[in-house]
């Protein structure tokens, strides 16, 4: 009987091995981001963008005559998890990756993709260091925090004409990086009353906001994501702070509006150019909203990133990483967010951003700049 069990288990293992060894005639691309947890909404927004691009290519008959399969892995905006899902994607044999979302995940993961020579295009990680690691496989479709930080500094100084700024950040690569860039760009034109970090995932910001209040700032700058941003905006109002909260693309997301509620009115956040007024842009908005509902944040950037990768495969006529990277670098792509062209580091050549403000529970354009 025992021998029978052993044989059974062996046959099970055999079955598994054989199924693995079977050569699948598909092209696998990967995407990774925070698909669960407090940033699940923007994570899934990004995934949907990639999915839309993949399904459009598949209806056209795939690429190189093969079907495209999308592997999506959840990194829960945790750098450790990001490394492990990056390894997982690599060993699953993806030919390129769209992701990750958070800079602190993209940075360690990009090393793994680079070692394997697989192109990675992030639609959302804005930390400047990501493209300064000397990896030629790293690209992004969004702008950088130094551009954003400078834009926000200019906005505070020239448009709002405020001098006293309290700067808070969430201690992440993105949040702290953006705050640093903001501070650097603002230079001595503003007076930084207080510069302090808070913990991502914390919900009680009243102690630090009480301290912020005692320095009496004109503006509170927050480098971080929308959940914490929403709580900070709400708790600042509860403490009687009148200074508006201002931040980067991390604050742009409907979670912020829901968390902060009426307190969000009159806060400012930068985001990149929304979808372009071109046919591609309009088609994307139409198809995306029909399939997934409202666009949250990074979906158009993810859509373009996926299209660039698939287009590169089609142009290079191979899935070889080196050729793909060359093809991406040489490409001039007309995407949903406008024309995308890469410089030597993998940054886009032209990155515009828009300042939004909240009015009647909606993000509305405050000013555009190039």
């Amino acid at each position, binding site marked *: 009987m025992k021998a029978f069990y052993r044989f059974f288990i062996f046959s099970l293992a055999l079955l598994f091995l054989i199924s693995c060894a079977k050569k699948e005639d598909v092209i696998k691309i990967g995407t990774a981001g925070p698909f669960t*947890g407090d940033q699940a909404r923007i994570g899934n927004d990004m995934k949907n963008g990639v999915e839309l691009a993949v399904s459009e290519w598949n209806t056209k008959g795939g690429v190189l005559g093969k079907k495209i399969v999308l592997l999506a892995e959840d990194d829960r905006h945790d750098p450790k998890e990001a490394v492990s899902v990056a390894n997982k994607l690599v060993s699953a044999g993806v030919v390129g990756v769209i992701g990750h979302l958070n800079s602190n995940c993209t940075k360690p993961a990009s090393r793994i993709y680079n070692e394997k020579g697989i192109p990675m295009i992030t639609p959302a990680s804005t930390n400047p260091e990501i493209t300064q690691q000397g990896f030629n496989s790293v690209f992004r479709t969004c702008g950088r925090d130094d551009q954003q930080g400078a834009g926000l500094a200019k906005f505070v100084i020239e448009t709002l004409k405020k001098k006293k700024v309290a700067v808070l950040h969430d201690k992440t690569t993105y949040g702290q990086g953006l705050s640093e860039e903001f501070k650097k760009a603002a230079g001595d034109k503003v007076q930084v009353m207080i510069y302090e970090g808070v913990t991502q995932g914390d919900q009680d910001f009243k102690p630090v906001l009480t301290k912020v209040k005692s320095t009496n700032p004109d503006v509170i700058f927050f480098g971080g994501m929308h959940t914490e941003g929403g709580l900070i905006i709400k708790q600042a109002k509860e403490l009687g702070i009148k200074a508006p909260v201002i931040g980067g693309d991390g604050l742009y997301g409907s*979670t912020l509006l*829901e968390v902060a509620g009426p307190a969000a009115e009159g806060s400012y956040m930068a985001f990149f150019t929304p979808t372009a007024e071109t046919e591609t842009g309009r088609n994307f908005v139409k198809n995306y909203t029909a399939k997934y509902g409202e666009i949250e944040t990074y979906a158009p950037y993810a859509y373009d990133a996926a299209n660039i990768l698939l287009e590169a495969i089609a142009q290079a006529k191979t899935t070889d990483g080196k050729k793909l990277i060359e093809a991406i670098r040489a490409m001039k792509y007309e995407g949903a967010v406008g024309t995308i062209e890469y410089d030597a580091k993998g940054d886009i050549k032209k990155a515009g951003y828009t300042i939004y403000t909240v009015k009647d529970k909606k993000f509305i354009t405050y000013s555009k700049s190039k």
Partner: protein
Amino acid sequence: MFLQQIINGLTIGSVYALIALGYTMVYGILQLINFAHGEIYMIGAYMGIIAIGFFVYLGLADISLTLTLILTFIAAMIFTGAYGITLERIAYRPMRNAPRLSILISAIGMSIFLQNYVMLAQGAKDKIFPHDLKIQGGLTIADAHITYIQIMIMLISILMMAGLTYFVKKTKIGMAMRATSQDMRMAGLLGINTDRIIVITFFLGSILAGAAGVMISMYYGIVNFSMGYAAGIKAFTAAVLGGIGNIPGAMLGGILLGLIEALGAGYISSEYKDVFAFAILVIVLIFRPSGLLDERVSEKV
């Protein structure tokens, strides 16, 4: 600024105290650290949102907001209590005579299970407590702002803690609870149904955590499946700080922890907010290994 920090600290501290009571009561009776207690608190927060959604659907909010909120509290507490009892029944009772380590593993397993269960059932996204159903406004004392929700949190916490103290000190079941915590076998021999007492202990701990969950979801406005972990660790720290197994100790520990966090973040640095709480814990445990208020741990363990 000082007064404001005290208010901030007392608000969060009273919530810690409510959750810490659940840890300490269970420890007092079973010498078990119920690691799933943080998840019970998280379930309380979800129950609050579900209950208020249900009452709004019934149209109760249009009649009276206060009544809706009171009913929300009651409903959430009852359902959370039910979770606590079930938890005891399926994860701890079958292991009553097992080695302590096995029960601890069972507790951690339940904690992981409940987190993922809620994630699957309710989705991974944050749930938002409806803004227009929250108590609005607040008071200004000197230059400190205190919202009505903060006042409500403190009042309800004090009421519940007073109620619990009365229950444990003055009622017959309370006496039986104290007897069980001193010597379970002896209490059993004297005719106390110790299994029932344990169930009651879990129920009481869970309804306190449930109330804390509802209050926090009103205060911060968001609820997610992972919120129980951090709160559970903090409340556990509070219970140890006050002397685990000791009911007034848990209350003291909770309030102290809240105050330490607020003052540390306010006057030193918010970057190390969590560090202060744990640093104080380490210091207290070096000088008073059994916590601030406890005297009898040495004879028990």
